[in-house]
Structure formats: C-alpha cells, structure tokens
C-alpha cells in the first residue's frame, strides 16, 4: 500500500548528452584529433519497481523496494554507466613525436541502476 510518486520517462536513469570539446579546455594545439567527443553521463531516477530497461542489478531491485517502504532511511539506487566504449586520441608529445593513444571506458553508452 506504499505510495508511488509519479515518475515521468524523461527523468528515469539514462545517458545524457555531454560533448567534451578539447579546444574549450585549450588543448587544440597539441591534440591533433578528435577535436572533441561525445562523452555523455548518467542521470535519472531508479524508482520502484525497476523495469527491465533500467539495466539493474538484483541488489538495486532490493534497494528500490526498501526505499519505497522507507524513503528516509534508504536512498534510491544510483544511476551509473554500465556500458562504456573507448576512444583514441592522436596528439603531439613534448618531443614533437606523434602519439596515438587508446583510452578505455571514455564514452557512456548505457546507464543502469
């Protein structure tokens, strides 16, 4: 009989667009490519009941249930990246050598609770 506050689709846990521009941080003279990239981030609610789309762990399902019963005592589960992909950056080092470097887990593709 617990009360379920209405949750609109838009504030459910999901990736949000975030573009990182290297020229904004003044790195355009040593980064050759890319000029920036879509990093995204996770934001949104993990409400009870957790639907399958929310990519949740079993523990998160448990925590939402407890939160629905005792909202003050137990917070909602977090909305975090669950699938990420790498990017590559081409840049000049201090000795004018060209370096191609791969970085894992730089783009948020999917979020989950």
């Amino acid at each position: 009989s617990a009360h379920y506050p209405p949750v609109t689709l838009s504030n459910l846990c999901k990736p949000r667009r975030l573009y990182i521009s290297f020229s904004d941080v003044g790195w355009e003279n040593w980064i050759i490519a890319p000029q920036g990239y879509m990093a995204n981030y996770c934001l949104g609610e993990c409400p009870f009941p957790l639907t399958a789309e929310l990519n949740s762990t079993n523990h998160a399902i448990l925590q939402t249930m407890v939160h629905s019963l005792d909202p003050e005592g137990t917070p909602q589960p977090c909305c975090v990246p669950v699938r990420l992909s790498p990017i590559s950056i081409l840049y000049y080092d201090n000795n004018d050598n060209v370096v191609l470097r791969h970085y894992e887990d730089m783009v948020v593709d999917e979020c989950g609770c």
Partner: protein
Amino acid sequence: LTLQESLLLKSLGLSAKPSPKTPVPVPSVLWRIFQKRKTLPSTKKDLADACRVEEFNVPGNIIRVLADRGHFVHNGQPQRLLCLQKRLYFNLSVLEEGERLTMAQLEIKFSHNSYHTSGQGQVFELRLYQTSQISLRGMPPNEHSRKLLVEQSFAQLHKSLLFNLSGVAKDWRTYSMNLGLILEISVSGRDGASAPMSGELQSLCASIDSFLDTSLLVVTLSQQQCKASRRRR
C-alpha cells in the same frame, strides 16, 4: 594549469600538457589506425580491445612514431662501396615509467622505388649495426665497437623498408645504453659480377639520393590504464 586540467591530464596518463614546437605531419600508419577505430560502430567499439593493437597483433594502448635524431656520418662522395652511412638515434626517454614496450619497428623511407638498370649485376646491401661507443659527429664509427644486427641485400630498393627492433629498443629504455644504430647502404657486385668502378659507383649510389628519413614506431602498454577492467554487468 588549473587543478581540474592537471587532474584531467593525469587521468589521461599525461604528467604535463605537451607543448609541441614544430608539429610534423601525422604518419599515415597512425592516421589509418585512428580512422579505423573512430569509424567502428559503437556496438563493436566496446568489444574492440583498447589495450591491444590488432594491426600489429601485440598488446598495447599507446603507439608512438619517434623521429630519428641521428646524423649522417659522411655526406657527398661515396666511399669504397658505401653509398650512405648514417647514425640513427631515437629518444625513448619519452616513454613513461609505467609503460611496457611491446613492439618497435624501424622504417627506412625513400621517396621512390629504386631499380638498377637490368644486367648490371649489382645489388644494394643494407646493414644495421648496434654501437656500444659514441663517435664524434662526422667521424666514422669505430669498427670494433659495433655489432651487426641486420644484413640484407636488395636488387631493388623499395619505398619503405621495415625492420623489427623490439629486442634492441627495450635496452634503449636505459638512457645510458641508448647509443643508437649505424645504418649503412652500399652497393656490391652480385655473385661473380665485378665490383662497380668508381664512376659507376657514383651513378649507382645516386639512386640512394631518394633516401627520405627513418622513424621508429613504438607500441607500449600502460600498466596504469590497462589494468584488468572492472567486471561488466
């Protein structure tokens, strides 16, 4: 640097913001690998192992093309059968401490393929020596302080010659052990053919004029960034 910027650089494995002085053209091999990874569909991207260079089939997440900082040992008149003698030196101190070198490939570039006119019976001979002693600029290296690493002969000199120097390059991580290499390209008669006369030598060596430069492609694996990734859901 703002605190945020230095933390972001650190997360990218960089101890400081690079400040290139004379940016060089991007080597085509790096541009090709970069473009290939960039155009991977996102569903495949996270499957692509960012800690392995599949193009060379070695572990690694950093690929550098190091410019040769060596100098010619002699210029102008070919000596004996020697057309070119050059010291090669690649500064590997740019590699950060936590990086493990997994491959080093030397590329010798010519502006075009060089062919002998047929029937002359001469071949190009290329030798790479590891030196254990430094010689003054312009002075020929001491014959006894060098060890033959590579010896190959070519009827035709191709635009690009590649040599695997992974073993030698690992030693170069120690600054004091990095005395570079000596590259020699000479002309010799094929079995039985007579050695070229000096005038002939001059013309044969002329095709070495298409020599452009040498560079060292180095692949390393950053232990910090290529730890076992967290278990994915």
